[in-house]
């Protein structure tokens, strides 16, 4: 985007855009020169989260940043507040982790280097798309970023090239495209009604009514499909089960949540008072929790369990809608914090869990749960990582999942919305059921030993660090949440 700027950009803006645009460039560079070790990847990538940290510090001191580009008569807006900054930081950390993991994965899974080289530009594209989504403040940028994210994600899913992966990727592609068209239709209606594309202007110009409502309904349906919320989650599990581990990790952790993020942004700005519809979303979320949990309990392969768990966990996020719609400020603040904490905790934990599961599968050479017997002896670290990540997913202390669940419960109880309390309780128990099902299989002692392939130590380490981060976020939640609280809600 080499467009003339309105005003000389601030240092912060420059840093932000550098941080956003660096990954694709790095990705392209890595395509030509694929990294063979983890350390260079980490070294090259580390400045990005550091830059974001600095930006966050600036934001917390001086309030949100915003700005606009002009491009052929179009004005494209962006803004960076606490939430966007935190999500950006989370994204960069996860990308870095999966990039590092991917190096090890390639080596351990013996993927041909040429095949794998494609991973890097796609990763860079995904990083740029996610970053754009967090900071975008108009629908056009959002649309472009969403599509970029969807296409790069599909591309990454297809990389293994197996029949399953192709099939699942095809399904993902079709549904992602249709979902974006539904979203585009909603955008069209909004644009027609208000003539604005920037979020702030849209919020100011739109008035609650049939048009906004229908537009939001169509748009939401599209985004729900992309976010794999029950009952539109059908494409998610096959995709996760067949993709490479770093890809599934990124996808489960971030990609589906980007759609949720957009939906939340629009919903809060345009139809914050649509209580009934918000309850429907909450209901869908609840069903997702139940359905995902039950399916995970019955799944037979390890990665499937993890994938189904994503379906279930995404449901928790949806509970934010009823808790934010038409409730008191106290409830809304609680629910707002809970949602983003849950998102962050789940992102870290899910990535860690996918990586741990990937390590188990890769090292053990089996994918079925029942074949895991003895894993606790042979692969203690991977299993431990899996366990720590599972603690967050179950929402047991001292994890981020726990703190988020505490906030959600508090919000639900304060608002008197008891059904969500039941959902949270049942969801936790279901999660515990499938998580410990894995452990029950792994703890079996009387089993034939099979050969364990040694994995690069970094793979376990990356996963463990992510899981520990999710755990530490539980008690260390005050810093990010304070940023969120200062910022307030849109």
């Amino acid at each position, binding site marked *: 985007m080499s467009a003339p700027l309105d005003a000389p950009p601030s240092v912060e803006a420059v840093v932000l855009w550098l941080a956003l645009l660096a990954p694709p460039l790095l990705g392209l560079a890595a395509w030509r020169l694929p990294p063979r070790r983890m350390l260079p990847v980490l070294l090259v990538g580390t400045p990005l989260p550091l830059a974001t940290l600095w930006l966050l510090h600036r934001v917390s001191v001086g309030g949100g940043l915003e700005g606009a580009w002009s491009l052929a008569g179009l004005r494209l807006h962006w803004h960076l507040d606490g939430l966007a900054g935190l999500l950006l930081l989370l994204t960069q950390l996860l990308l870095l982790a999966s990039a590092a993991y991917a190096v090890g994965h390639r080596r351990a899974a013996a993927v041909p280097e040429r095949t794998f080289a494609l991973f890097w530009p796609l990763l860079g594209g995904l990083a740029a798309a996610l970053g754009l989504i967090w900071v975008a403040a108009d629908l056009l940028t959002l649309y472009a970023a969403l599509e970029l994210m969807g296409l790069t994600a599909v591309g990454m899913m297809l990389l293994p090239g197996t029949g399953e992966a192709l099939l699942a990727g095809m399904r993902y592609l079709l549904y992602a495209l249709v979902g974006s068209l539904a979203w585009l239709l909603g955008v069209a209606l909004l644009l027609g009604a208000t003539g604005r594309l920037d979020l702030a202007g849209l919020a100011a110009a739109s008035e609650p009514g049939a048009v906004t409502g229908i537009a939001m309904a169509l748009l939401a349906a599209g985004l729900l499909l992309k976010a794999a919320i029950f009952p539109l989650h059908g494409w998610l599990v096959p995709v996760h089960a067949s993709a490479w581990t770093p890809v599934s990790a990124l996808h489960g952790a971030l990609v589906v949540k980007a759609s949720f993020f957009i939906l939340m942004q629009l919903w809060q700005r345009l139809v914050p008072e649509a209580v009934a519809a918000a309850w429907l979303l909450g209901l869908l979320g609840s069903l997702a929790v139940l359905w995902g949990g039950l399916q995970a309990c019955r799944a037979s392969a390890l990665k499937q369990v993890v994938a189904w768990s994503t379906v279930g966990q995404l449901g928790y996020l949806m509970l934010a809608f009823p808790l934010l719609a038409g409730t008191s400020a106290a409830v809304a603040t609680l629910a707002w914090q809970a949602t983003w904490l849950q998102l962050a905790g789940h992102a870290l934990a899910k990535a860690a869990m996918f990586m741990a599961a990937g390590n188990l599968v890769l090292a053990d050479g089996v994918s079925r749960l029942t074949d895991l017997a003895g894993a606790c002896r042979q692969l203690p670290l991977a299993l431990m990582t899996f366990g720590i990540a599972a603690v967050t997913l179950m929402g*047991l*202390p001292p994890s981020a999942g726990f703190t988020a669940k505490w906030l959600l419960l508090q919000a639900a109880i304060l608002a008197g919305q008891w059904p969500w309390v039941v959902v949270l309780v049942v969801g936790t128990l279901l999660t515990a059921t499938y998580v*410990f099902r894995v452990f029950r299989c792994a703890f079996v002692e009387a089993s034939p030993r099979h050969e364990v392939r040694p994995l690069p130590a970094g793979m376990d380490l990356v996963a463990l660090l992510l899981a520990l981060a999710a755990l530490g976020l539980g008690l260390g*939640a005050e810093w990010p949440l304070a940023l969120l609280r200062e910022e307030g809600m849109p």
Partner: protein
Amino acid sequence: MSGALLLLATLGTSLVAAVVIFLLPERAFRARTGINLGAALVKLSLVAWMVWGLSHGREYVIEFPVLEGLAFVLRADDLGIMFAGLSSLLWLLTTIYAIGYLEDSPNRKRFFGFFGLCVASTLGISLAGNLFTFLVFYELLTLSTYPLVVHRGTSKALAAGKVYLRFTLTAGMGLMVGMVILHVLAGDIRFGEREILAELGPERRPLLVGLFWVLIAGFGVKAALVPLHGWLPRAMVAPAPVSALLHAVAVVKAGAFGIVRLVYDVYGIELSAELGLLYGLVVVASVTILFGSLRALAQQELKPRLAYSTVSQVSYIVLGIGLFGPLGTIAALSHLLHQGLMKITLFFCAGNYAEELGIHRIDELDGAGRRMPLTSLAFTVGALGMIGLPPVVGFLSKWYLGTGAIQAGMPWVIIVLVASSLLNAAYFLPVLGRLWFRPGPDHGVGAWPEERRLGRLETHGWLLVPAVATALFSLMAGMLAGMPFSPLEWATRVVNAEYLP
């Protein structure tokens, strides 16, 4: 060392030990043993330091906010340090025991790692300064004990682990919901801020009663109150040190300690009495006491019998809480320690019999007193204490419970106590009779199921020493109950300082 640092160091000792153990390779037997014992000793001395400090009026608090209006609080008060002292003392002994017990068995690294985590959680429970912090460690305890329960990896162990989780996780959820409701109602209640709930309006009273029972149910699962006790006898499949820890310190005590905290430090004893909650507690405890004893009587194997005995004995604590009055409170608090000492002795001994002679059933114990005199002596001390005979500590608890019941105007509790004593006698005396007075393989009658001759003494020294030590402790704590820093004295101090109504 500042107060906060001391607290963190105490908590961190076992945590760091656990992490280091996880990092060590499986073969590093010596290093692991050294770390285990070193950490246990360091922790014990740190706790002793805090006991000394507390008795000199020092304060030990550390806190930081986790959420808006919700803090993570660690605070050593008299009551907490009592439990901390128990857990660190018994951790040391159990560690010694476990080192001997698990010699040459697989997965020791995992075992000791989670063992350390388990103790760290127990310590966290004892030092928690509000319900939130308590819950954090309470759930952590559930998680860290699971690998210990299923340690053997047999299908029976895994099934027991499943049942264990079903009970404890469900209870944990109930607890969490109850705590959140309480939080919504009254904000962040630090332990000891009893006036917050007491000052709520009368229209909140029914809600408070309901919440109380929800929370009691949550704690009651770990404390194995009937009918929430189902997991405990099944968890017997775990290795002996785990059973010992589970029954004596960690899990059941955590539940009982939670009830203590809830009644004394959150609701306040007066409010609980006003709301009529204590009578219900007494009834629940009485039913549990009798039910546990009756079930124990029906068991043919040693460990299940001990397990049901735990069900019965832990409820003494609850019973003491329910007896609104200083004596009942003293009974509850001191029994927290007393039961730990006695029960851990019994489990150590049961483990010794199983390890050395392969004995699991009671009728295989004939004449074991001659073969393993010190173990049998320790077992005898524990059993007599459970029956409530002086000078073992069990008598003190029973005495204070009985007199407390009279003071509380519930003389029928004495019937429960005496009936429980008789039942205890009925299931322990035959065991003792078999140990000492029946001719067995050492008298030339029959043979041991699986004799192993683990050491030059009657069994492995690492196994023998802890059992004898805890037996001695429970004997001394009873005989020297009038000495300063004895459990009874400390409980009296707690009551005098904080809970006298």
